[in-house]
């Protein structure tokens, strides 16, 4: 008797996890090698997974409906001694490679001597390489003869597979040596509509919509890392946003000298109340105060109409070691500066400790991203759909600046300056709308009322 782990297979390079949708066997059931054992679904495909060996299903470790990373042990097979032996071994490579090389007698040219495969279409054993991720060949390493045959295909089939994100090795091939033909892959795609490109245009699927990321061949020595869920969502969302919105940007330079002074003055008092007062808090406050006066900036696009949001909920992009997340300050326009500063502290802290609730990242109406701490002069952010504008904050630092005194004389002074960049969706926001809003934000920041601190 031997125990064989049953693993969640990797159904494609970009897939990091799979949902076990159904067990096809119960604990105690006997299973044959390659008999369908359970069904999985990933964001790209649904599939039946064959048993890696013959035996008895001894243990179920992942229940139906659970989503687990690839290579997680989902169950255990107990194999009989006899059955166990061949299980870990790679199946004998089918002997199709050498079709008695051209008869020695001069049988040249002519009807392109359809070589031996024509006569002997070798039925490739049905065994699919899907169940054995331990082979670790997904990244383009050495393949067994069987795997090579399973993925052997024509340029057209590879093109179709890339367009539909289909793993060719999963398709039963009807051509010579089990080769996947055009008919095979088209039939497969037709039968499995989930695997076909679901991108039906921005109108109907603004939030989700499968995004196709082109396949790139890794080079020898490269490391291929499947995306995490957050990376996948970010990637899809960013591409989708670029496709959906007519991005355009305005850049304003703001004199933060007054804000810097107010901040320095109040920092201690805020700290005593457990709040870190940042430049960002002032900027959020300035936006929150002005968004209601510029409703087109605090809006969303739905089909061919504009939704003017009743609430002013400002999302703050937070960079984490494992990705980017945008928690939302709800009703930001109803909060004082200290309320906003506290909300920023709180959301940032909970993002870093993975304690955000689902509601914390929803219902944003406008977003601010603040890469300034990393030093960029300015940046051009991508709109967080379905919103219509996002503000990017550049580095805030002391720079020489021409200032005009009350008597009209100019001089160069050392001022605390920073750039504000706003990307906005030109489908509904015109340059004048955006610039008026930014001008108001700038004015409020430069003349920030002391009483509001």
């Amino acid at each position, binding site marked *: 008797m031997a125990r064989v782990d049953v693993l969640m297979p990797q159904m494609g390079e970009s897939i990091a996890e799979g949902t076990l949708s159904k067990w096809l066997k119960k604990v105690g059931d006997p299973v044959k090698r390659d008999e369908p054992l359970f069904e999985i679904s990933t964001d790209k495909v649904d599939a039946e997974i064959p048993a890696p060996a013959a035996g008895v299903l001894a243990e179920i470790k992942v229940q139906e409906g659970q989503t687990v990373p690839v290579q997680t042990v989902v169950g255990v097979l107990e194999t009989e001694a006899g059955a166990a032996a061949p299980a870990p071994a790679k199946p004998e490579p089918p002997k199709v490679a050498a079709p008695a090389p051209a008869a020695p007698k001069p049988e040249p040219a002519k009807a392109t001597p359809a070589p031996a495969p024509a006569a002997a279409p070798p039925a490739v054993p049905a065994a699919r390489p899907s169940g054995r991720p331990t082979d670790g060949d997904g990244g383009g390493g050495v393949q067994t003869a069987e795997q090579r045959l399973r993925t052997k295909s024509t340029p057209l089939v590879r093109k179709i597979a890339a367009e539909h994100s289909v793993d060719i090795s999963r398709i039963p091939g009807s051509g010579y040596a089990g080769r996947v*033909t055009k008919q095979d892959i088209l039939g497969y795609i037709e039968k499995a509509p989930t695997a076909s490109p679901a991108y039906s245009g921005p109108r109907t699927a603004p939030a989700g919509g499968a995004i196709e990321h082109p396949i790139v061949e890794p080079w020898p020595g490269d490391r291929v890392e499947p995306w995490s869920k957050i990376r996948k969502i970010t990637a899809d969302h960013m591409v989708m946003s670029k496709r959906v919105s007519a991005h355009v940007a305005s850049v304003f330079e703001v004199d933060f000298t007054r804000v810097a002074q107010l901040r320095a003055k109040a920092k201690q008092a805020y700290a005593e109340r457990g709040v870190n007062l940042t430049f960002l808090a002032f900027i959020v406050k300035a936006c929150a105060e002005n968004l209601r006066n510029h409703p087109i900036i605090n809006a969303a696009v739905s089909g061919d109409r504009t939704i003017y949001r009743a609430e002013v909920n400002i999302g703050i992009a937070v960079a984490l070691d494992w990705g980017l997340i945008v928690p939302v300050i709800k009703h930001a326009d109803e909060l004082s500066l200290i309320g906003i500063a506290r909300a920023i502290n709180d959301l940032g802290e909970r993002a870093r400790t993975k304690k955000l609730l689902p509601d914390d990242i929803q219902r944003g109406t406008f977003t601010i991203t603040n890469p300034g701490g990393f030093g960029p002069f300015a940046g051009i952010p991508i709109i967080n759909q379905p919103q219509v504008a996002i503000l990017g904050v550049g580095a805030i630092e002391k720079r020489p600046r021409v200032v005009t005194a009350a008597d009209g004389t100019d001089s160069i002074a050392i001022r605390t300056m920073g750039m504000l960049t706003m990307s906005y969706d030109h489908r509904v926001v015109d340059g004048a709308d955006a610039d008026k809003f930014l001008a108001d934000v700038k004015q409020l920041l430069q003349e920030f009322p002391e009483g509001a601190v």
Partner: protein
Amino acid sequence: MAEVTFLEALRQGLWEEMERDERVFILGEDVGLYGGAFKVTDGFAKRFGESRVIDTPISEAAIVGAAAGAAHMGLRPVAEMQFIDFISCAYDMLTNYVATARYRAGLSTPMVVRGPCGGYVRGGPFHSQNPEAAFLHTPGLKIVYPATVRDAKGLIKASIRDEDPVLYLEHKWLYRRIKEQLPEGEEILTPIGQARIARDGKHLSIISYGATLWKSLEAAEQLEKADGVSVEVLDLRTLLPMDDAAIVATVKKTNKVLIVHEDTRTGGIAGEIAARINEQAFEWLDGPIMRVTAHDVPLPYAPTLEDFVLPQTDDILKAARWLANY
């Protein structure tokens, strides 16, 4: 409508052009009094006179050279090679002189060199050749190779009217073997440089021309009946300039290509076509580009050997079936 042979269609085309344009004249061996070895120009000398239907000495170089000079001077010569095999005697005139005249000296050379080519007629090595590959490699020439009665007429007329030298290849196996109803009183002109879908299909394309077009059509018919495979057949009609757009279109439609020609394999046109498909439609291929051609040997006299060397319908059928199942 009248049913005419390939040869008669060619004869009509020549006749009409000579009636239409008095600059058109014919020169060659035995084209006048005798009416040509295959009787293509039968009756021409009587109608048009000895100055427009000129019997020449047995010198292909002289025939082509005289034609080129006349063309430079504003005439429209049609030079006959009694068998196209002997065009190699005029290879120097055609490739070094005629093909380069426009480039070298800005000289227009509107002339046609035509002649019977091809095998399947027990003609042996000197009377069965297909010389197209040698000239395909020569910039400055055009090469047409009609397979149908209609195109035999349409292409000779278009060739005579072309401003550049055209090599017109006529397959002698087709001369009296194929017949077609041609409308009387309608001017038939087949544009040079345009291929034609001879049979519509969706699973596999056969690209061919000349006599093997008919063998390809037979094979396509049999494959459809026996295997239910729908085969498209493309008739190139013009070999130079090659109709890349039509070739790419059929590849994109069926994704599998078999190229069939009667000429020998190595250095044959099939290789050039395959290269163009690779360059322009690689990602549309669902199988290797295949060839059915003659073996790389001189054509034997012995009937059994000729049958073996030249591509037959059954050879095409086998290759097409293999490719369809690929």
